[in-house]
Structure formats: structure tokens, C-alpha cells
């Protein structure tokens, strides 16, 4: 192990303990680690975006298309290069907020562009990507003959699935009062919702616990074990 990595190991271990120290109570060590996290994360995403968006998708694309036009006379290359100027201009317009309210309102144009884009994608993506596949997955065979050798338990599951989806939807239907038949179905819906929330909660807890085990493993095995290995190797 190199010295840089040993240093990294100690930094990582110190920061891990600093964050875990919050379990006792809010303290300066935790606050220090928290603020380091904010600074490092912000810088990481800025550098990541600069490299993988601005350089690869904007500058390199613009350069290669312009070169294709200049060297081979490719008209499509010129068009592609010119088209890339549009998001650049929109991006610069977004920065007019820095100048002040006099021309800051121009930043509404790129915002409107992204909102329109998101709204359009929300319709097509929402219907094609979520709504139809979810409805399709719900429509399963409701009756399986026990003599056909098929899994009867699967048919029970399909019935419960239909009941769960419809009753959950009815629970969130507020245009009519939840009385009578709608009241009964929405009551079934809340039962499904409660089981769903509980299951989701249980799964989240287990995921977090596994992360915690990972951090404890890091402290015991990698930090202490790695340091001992480093000292022995000297």
C-alpha cells in the first residue's frame, strides 16, 4: 500500500467516525465532516459535468462537426455544429440572472425551454414508460384451473394484484365521498397501502443496515487491518 492510500484510509476512517459521532449528538466533528461533504460533492459534480457534458457533448462534438465541414465539406457537419450553438446560447441566457433583475428575466427563456421539454416528455414518457407497462403488467390471467397443473397460488396473487391496484386507485379518488361501496373499496386500498409502506420501510431499513455493516467492516478490516499490514511491510 502506497503512502497516499494509507493517508486516504486514515482520512476516510476519520470522516466515517466523525459522521457516526452524530449518534451521540450534534458536535463539531460531525459538522466539520458534513461541510466537507457539501464542498467536495459540489466540486465533484461541477468537474464531472464539465468533463462529461460540456467537453464531450458540447466542445468535442462542435469541434468534430466543424472539422468534418472544413475538411470534407460535410453540410450536415456544419448544421450539427450550428445547432449546438442553440443550447450554448440558452445556457448563457440562464446566466443573465447574475447581472440583475433588469435583464435577469431573460433567464425565463431557457427555463421555459426545459419546462416545455419536461412537460412534453412527461406526456409521452409517462404514458409509454409508466402508465401502459404498469396497466399491462396488472392484466394477468385471473383464473387458473387447478387441474391444468398451473400454479394456483399465482392466480391468487393475480387476483390480489388487481384488487390492490384498483382499491389503491379508488382510495386516491377524491371526487366522490368515500361512503358505501367506494368507502369499502378505499378501506381495502388503505390496507394494501399500509402493507406496501411497511414493506418498503423494511426493505429500506435493511439496505441502510447493510450500508452500516459495510462501514463497520471498513473500519475494522480495511482501516485497522490495512494500517497493521502497512506497518508490517515497513
Amino acid at each position, binding site marked *: 500500500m502506497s503512502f497516499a492510500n494509507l*493517508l486516504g484510509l486514515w482520512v476516510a476512517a476519520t470522516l*466515517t467516525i466523525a459522521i457516526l459521532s*452524530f449518534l451521540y449528538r450534534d458536535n463539531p466533528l460531525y459538522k466539520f465532516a458534513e461541510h466537507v461533504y457539501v464542498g*467536495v460533492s459540489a*466540486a465533484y459534480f461541477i468537474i464531472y459535468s464539465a468533463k462529461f457534458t460540456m467537453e464531450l457533448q458540447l466542445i468535442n462534438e462542435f469541434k468534430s462537426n466543424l472539422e468534418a465541414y472544413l475538411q470534407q465539406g460535410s453540410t450536415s457537419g456544419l448544421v450539427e455544429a450550428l445547432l449546438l450553438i442553440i443550447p450554448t446560447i440558452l445556457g448563457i441566457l440562464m446566466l443573465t440572472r447574475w447581472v440583475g433583475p433588469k435583464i435577469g428575466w431573460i433567464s425565463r427563456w431557457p427555463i*421555459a425551454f426545459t419546462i416545455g421539454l419536461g*412537460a412534453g416528455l412527461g406526456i409521452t414518457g409517462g404514458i409509454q414508460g409508466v402508465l401502459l407497462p404498469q396497466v399491462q403488467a396488472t392484466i394477468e390471467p385471473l383464473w387458473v384451473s387447478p387441474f391444468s397443473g398451473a400454479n394456483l397460488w399465482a392466480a391468487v396473487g393475480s387476483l390480489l394484484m388487481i384488487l390492490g391496484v384498483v382499491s389503491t386507485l379508488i382510495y386516491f379518488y377524491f371526487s366522490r365521498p368515500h361512503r358505501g361501496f367506494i368507502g369499502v373499496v378505499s378501506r381495502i386500498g388503505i390496507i*394494501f397501502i399500509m402493507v406496501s409502506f411497511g414493506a418498503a420501510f423494511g426493505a429500506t*431499513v435493511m439496505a441502510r443496515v447493510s450500508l452500516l455493516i459495510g462501514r463497520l467492516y471498513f473500519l475494522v478490516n480495511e482501516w485497522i487491518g490495512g494500517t497493521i499490514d502497512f506497518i508490517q511491510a515497513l
Partner: protein
Amino acid sequence: MKRRVPLIITFLMGVLMVVTFFIPREPFGSFEQRMLVWFSILGGFTLLLGLDSLVKHHFRRIIRKRKDSFYSIVTLVSLFGTLAAGIVTWAKYGTPLEFASLEQIGSFYWVYWWIMVPLQSTVFALLAFFIASAAYRAFRARTFDATLLLVAAILVMIGKMTMGVVPAALILAVFLVAAGVYRFFVREPVLGIIFGSIGVALGVLVIIFPAAKIAQIAPQVQEWIMSVPQMAARRGILIGVTLGAVAMSIRIILGIERTYLSST
């Protein structure tokens, strides 16, 4: 100009995105992909606004010598230190995320690997404790619904355990019996009998069956809960949310919903 142009842009973009979805031929075929690239480029510029806001906020705190301004210095040092590491590595290797092996990494990747990753996973790991304490407050089985929530959560947790399944199942059985007795004597005798019976049945099953069998059944129960009742309610919520999102998108495109214009 201030309101009409953004409304026209929103309308045109929204309609274009919907129309091009139905036209697979060029230039419309690749329109959505192109727009997503433009969107990420715009996002890159927006990050500069975020950076400006973060730096201004912390500089103000330092200059005004607010309480805890030392932590603002920590934030700014981490921010500019990481930015410097990224720029130096980028200039040296042509990419900021230089990673040949853990022994040969650029300084930016070093910061990512030894500072950002441990901090991120420890913060998320910390949530295990907060979720547990929140659960204690929220899950006190006061009502039938809360009890259902708690039982589903415990069954899923038991199903995901790699060890200690039998004691956990026994604890659940004891809990169910206790909840049943409470419910029987306090408010709902029928529910009390149901909970109590399930608890007793679970306890008997755990005692009769060998531990290996219990450890085999528990993940199956967990899988069934996740794939049937959990999925059913989740699907219902997803369908409802998507219908709402589509309706909201139509309102935005038609200019009925204009709250996004009020930020500047």
C-alpha cells in the same frame, strides 16, 4: 416579452416533443435524443449558478463573522480544493477521473474515493438509526393500519436477514400476541383475536419447524409481500402519479400552469 415569449417557448417545446414522438423519420426521429443532450448542456450551465449561490452564501457568512462561520471556511476549502484537484488531474491526464488502479490514481479520484464515497455511504448508513427511532414513534401499533405496517415491515426485514431468523420470528410472534391481547381488552375484540391467533400460529410454527426450514420460508414470504401486496399498492400509486403528471404537463403546455415564471 417577459411572460409571452416563455409561454410560447414552453408551448412549442411541449407540442414538438409530443408530435415528434409519433414521427420516427429524420429529423424528428432523433429529436428527443438531441433535446436530452441540449438539456444536459443547459444543466451544465445551471451548475455554475449553483456554484455561485453556494460560494456567495458561505462568503457572506465568513465576512459577517456569523456563528459557525468556521464551517463555511471548511466548505469553501473543500470546494476549491476539490475543484483544483480536478483541474490539475484533468490537465495532467486528459481526464479528471484518472484511475489505472487504486495504487495509481489522480488526485481528483483520490478525493472521490477516500473522501466522497466514505462520507456518502456513512451518511446513508446513519439513516438506519434515524429510521429506527422514527419507526419507534410512528409504528406504535395503536391502530389496525399501523399494526399492518409494522408487521409487513418486520416480515420483510426477517426475510432479508442472513442470520437470526428464528429469534426474530419468535419476537414477531410475541409482539403479535401482545398486540392481540391489547386490542382484545381495549377496543376491538375481533381484531384482537385475529392478531393473537396469527401470533400464536406463528410461534407454534417457529417452535415446531426446524430452524433451517424457517430460514428457507422467510425469504419466500418476504418475496411474496414485495411482489404482490407491495407491488399492487405501488402500482396503483404509480398509475395515479403518472395520470397526475400527464395532466400537469398538459396544463403547463397550454399555459394554464405558470408558477415556473414567478421565480425571476
